[in-house]
């Protein structure tokens, strides 16, 4: 059963130095507040996993929390590159970071396989592509019926999954809506999970019998952090702050502007600052 904790408690209890951590979100519902808490708690040597690492992973990497990133597309969507990731990967600042690179299809299948308790996934992928040359974890199997060669990817292995969602009820059941990405799979794949939510409500009242709901017993900790996905967004609550994504390009370009921004906006602040973004628009 999920425990209701403060964000500091939830991160303290569930994220350890050296952990394999997925903070998932496909543009939507990215758990920024939780990421900032990890930075404040100065976690080290994290192995970060995500299909589309964006600003929050740029921030974690720039602050020296990570030693590895497993990903399929690492950029600032619609804007450009992740300068802090590049600086770490190309120049070793603040520390060298290792990469494990896949395609989206591979990562999506790797999450799916892990949620399904399988050691690997099979997909029709990478034909004529070069990634298999540089990523030894990409292998192949032969279909026992047709003889077709198909690509394989190992299931993701996660110590902890961290996601943001619309709401939880008082038992800790969690409702996700909109672009749900691979968040459900990430939680089901992980040994531990932390879910930040906009609201905690008496009754979940999912709009459809087939709504995406994570039962309380699949979640380790639930934390209410209104606005906790900003500058990403929460469907039904607030929009994506596209202007901030554009502004990040300048902030992160140089080490000193980055450090100053992190100091002022993350290290000297707490999760309560996110509440300013948490207006319900639906």
């Amino acid at each position, binding site marked *: 059963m999920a425990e209701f904790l403060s964000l500091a408690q939830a991160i303290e209890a569930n994220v350890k130095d050296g952990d394999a951590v997925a903070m998932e979100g496909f543009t939507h519902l990215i758990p920024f507040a939780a990421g900032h808490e990890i930075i404040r708690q100065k976690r080290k040597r994290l192995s970060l996993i995500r299909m589309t690492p964006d600003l929050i992973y740029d921030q974690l990497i720039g602050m020296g929390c990570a030693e590895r990133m497993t990903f399929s597309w690492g950029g600032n969507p619609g804007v450009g590159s992740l300068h802090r990731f590049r600086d770490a990967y190309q120049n070793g600042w603040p520390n060298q970071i290792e990469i494990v690179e896949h395609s*989206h299809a591979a990562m999506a299948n790797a999450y*799916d396989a892990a949620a399904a308790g399988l050691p690997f996934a099979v997909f029709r992928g990478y034909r004529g592509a070069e990634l298999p040359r540089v990523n030894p974890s990409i292998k192949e199997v032969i279909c026992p019926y047709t003889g077709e060669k198909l690509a394989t990817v190992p299931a993701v292995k996660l110590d902890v999954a961290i996601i943001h969602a619309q709401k939880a009820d008082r038992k800790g059941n969690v409702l996700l809506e909109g672009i749900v990405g691979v968040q459900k799979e990430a939680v089901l794949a992980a040994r531990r999970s932390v879910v930040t939510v906009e609201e905690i409500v008496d009754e979940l009242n999912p709009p459809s019998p087939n709504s995406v709901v994570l039962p309380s017993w699949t979640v380790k900790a639930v934390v209410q952090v209104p606005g906790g996905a900003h500058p990403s967004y929460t469907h039904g609550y607030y929009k994506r702050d596209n202007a901030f994504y554009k502004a990040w390009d300048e902030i992160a370009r140089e080490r000193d502007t980055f450090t100053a921004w992190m100091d002022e906006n993350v290290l000297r602040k707490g999760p309560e600052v996110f509440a300013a973004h948490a207006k319900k628009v639906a």
Partner: protein
Amino acid sequence: MSQTFTPNEMMTVAAARALTNDDVCFVGIGAPSAACNLARHTHAPGIVLIYESGTLETRPNVLPLSIGDGELCETALTTVSVPEMFRYWLQGGRITTGFLGGAQIDRYANLNTTVVGPYEKPSVRLPGGGGAPEIATSCGQIFITMAHSKRAFVEKIDFFTSLGHGEGGDSRKKLGVTTKGPTKVITDLCVMEPDDKTKELTVVSLHPGVTKDQVIAATGWQIKFAPDAGETPPPNETELKVLRELHARTKAAHGGNA
């Protein structure tokens, strides 16, 4: 009636025109998104647009900045999980046309969005392939939109992020790939198509005002021109109006802190 337009507008309009009302498109951010939505607002109102974030049959009123903007979900027929998108919809062979672009392209329309320089020690680490490796092989055909420059149109790409026509000829077939691959490369200077046999990209039309020499100068290999290469019909009034309104709405929506 003559109108002025930018090379980028010409590229977007040419891409839009290549789409039909029956297409099911896997749309990327940027020019593809503009082209697909322009087509939807003009000659192809029934076109189905799918974004890899999971949004099926979406009808955005403004162009998304990211592949997962709220606008895409709010205007979609439905939104599925990302594993389902890549398994049932892309790999399932339901997409007629996919869009790709990249930092580098070669004469066989193979693309690189991974690194400039060697993979292990790149001079520029790019965002990576994302959905491209499987989009390139699972969609019925691929349209590529890219700004035309010698830095991008190169003799040899630094990394094979996604398959175009491989080494030409029946490369795709030899790899067991049954889809067509890139059938059009649309730039801000011209439209190229692979030669039927060799699969080498060949200019089939030059945008209005563009000379062969300009294209030659912007291409890193000895680019071929089709014998009957003519002029790309310029954007018409409606196309330009719709496209500009789309961009204006988009700018208004993304500029402010929504």
